[in-house]
């Protein structure tokens, strides 16, 4: 089975978030870029499927050269090939245009990714990519197994302890849930070896795309701000014993 895994590199913490004039994008300062946690689970699932059924795992990311660490991590964990799309895109729909174009240049039976990235928090890119590729999809997947030669059976969560078993023909795209496989630890020595492996890179032009095809459509940012506190939080200070006494009194008022 040929599996493509989409792993996004995301900022741990951001500061000085501002709207770029025109309102189509944000600019911000960010620390280290790490693999998006949800996508790391997708990577682990891809490697588990490869162990179970054989095949090849290709990992893709999108961004500047600084996102390449995500690919090295994937190679160190056991991915076979890595591809970086050299484009910086914030908008999920625009990202899906580029991801679909990149996937069209690969052979794949299955595309895996997480449900949501911690920066956009939109949960859109996966299914939008499947729609552009015209392939079936499933969201919040917790189990994957082959079901015959050219189809898979997946379990997907529907919320509130409900789920559905779904049969999908291949090729298909799955947004996997966190916890689908345990996350594995990569020893530093293996990471060092992974850094020696080649990583291909493709520009938008290589994918037959132009900048104006990836301009965000349909909206503009008006304002960014720290979230408002709806609960009007009252912070308690003092020794643990003092705080505990106050909290207990508050609790006893309602239960």
């Amino acid at each position, binding site marked *: 089975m040929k599996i493509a895994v989409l792993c996004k590199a995301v900022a741990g913490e951001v500061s000085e978030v501002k709207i770029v004039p025109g309102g189509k994008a944000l600019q*911000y300062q960010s620390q280290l870029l790490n693999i998006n946690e949800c996508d790391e689970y997708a990577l682990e699932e891809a490697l588990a499927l490869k162990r179970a059924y054989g095949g090849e795992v290709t990992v893709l990311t999108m961004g500047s050269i600084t996102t390449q660490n995500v690919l090295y991590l994937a190679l160190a964990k056991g991915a076979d090939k890595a591809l970086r799309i050299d484009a910086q895109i914030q908008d999920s729909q625009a990202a899906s245009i580029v991801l679909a174009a990149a996937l069209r240049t690969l052979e794949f039976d299955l595309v895996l990714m997480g449900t949501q990235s911690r920066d956009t928090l939109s949960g859109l890119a996966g299914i939008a990519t499947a729609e552009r590729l015209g392939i079936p999809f499933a969201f919040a997947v917790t189990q994957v197994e082959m079901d015959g030669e050219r189809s898979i059976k997946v379990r997907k969560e529907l919320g509130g*302890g409900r789920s559905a*078993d779904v049969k999908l023909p291949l090729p*298909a795209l799955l947004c996997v849930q966190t916890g689908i496989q345990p996350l594995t630890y990569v020893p530093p020595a293996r990471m060092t070896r992974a850094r020696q492996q080649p990583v291909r890179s493709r520009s938008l032009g290589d994918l037959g795309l132009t900048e104006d095809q990836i301009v965000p459509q349909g909206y503009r940012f*008006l304002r960014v701000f720290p*979230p408002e506190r709806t609960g009007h939080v009252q912070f308690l200070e003092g020794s643990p014993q003092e705080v505990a006494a106050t909290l207990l009194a508050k609790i006893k008022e*309602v*239960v």
Partner: protein
Amino acid sequence: MSRDILVIAEHWQGQVDGITYQLLTKGKQLADERGVGLSVLIVGNKLENAVEVLKDKGMDTLLVIDNPALEKAGAEVYATIIADTLRRTAPELVLIGYSLVGMELAPSIAGRLGATVMTNCVNVEILDGEFVVTRPLFDGTIHAKIALDQGVPAVVALQRGATPTEPLAAKAASVQSVAVDMQAIPVRSEVLELIEEPPSEVDIVKAELLVSIGRGIGDKEKITIIEDLAQALGGLMACSRPLVDLGFLPRERQVGASGKIVAPKVYIACGISGASQHLTGMSDAKMVIAINKDPNAPIYQVAHYGVVADLFGIVPALTEAAKNADSEAVS
């Protein structure tokens, strides 16, 4: 025909999900402000009861697609049917829940319609004649207000619990059955089985007090201090998703979008940062107490009382205080 605000009803086998009423409350507010009608679209199989329950809940029109072939239809069939219906009814704005069901459907419906889609929204309002959504970014540390272009259909997915649910004035809706040619819809995926977890012995939904634990606990062995506190306060222990993913606690204890939706009298969040998926599951709690070392953790957005401190100091102290109070009460 004026372009309505349309709500996509969520249900489980014909049982209307509470998020539908939240969307109705918001939809009605926007429709009144806009001076347009409010429609609801419900799609599924055996919907007689759902239609009966919904039809006087304040909408102008209830569009019903009730077809036996939908019993085991996959998300893409639903997306095709909903997109086709929306193309014909042409609402100005579509509201859907940012539930796992809505997360799967919204991008697919929008893709088919060429609509603008905004997910994970905590609000949608009308400002200067434009629909403006508020949604979190960067792990919830930032919120953005985003204006949607006019004249383009828009799909907005609202977080559960982010906006209030209020009963609307009763009104008899015009119930319209929408015919669908199922033969014309390509079916690729097939639902084999719908599974509902059997009720568990531990039911965190019924508890009046929950002590909930997140990633901040660090080690599995340390969970006992949370158990002790829950016991001392006469409540139950719950947790956020990462602890289930790590295998620390069983799924029956999980609060959030993919777990249980709870509304206890007291919710004590220990070492929980408050991702939107978690807040969705507990923001209706009457009193929220948050213990987290990070003063900027999103959990403080919904907390009433906050303790910016190490949970390993405060939790045992609270357990001790609760035990002492009990023994005093006995003696």
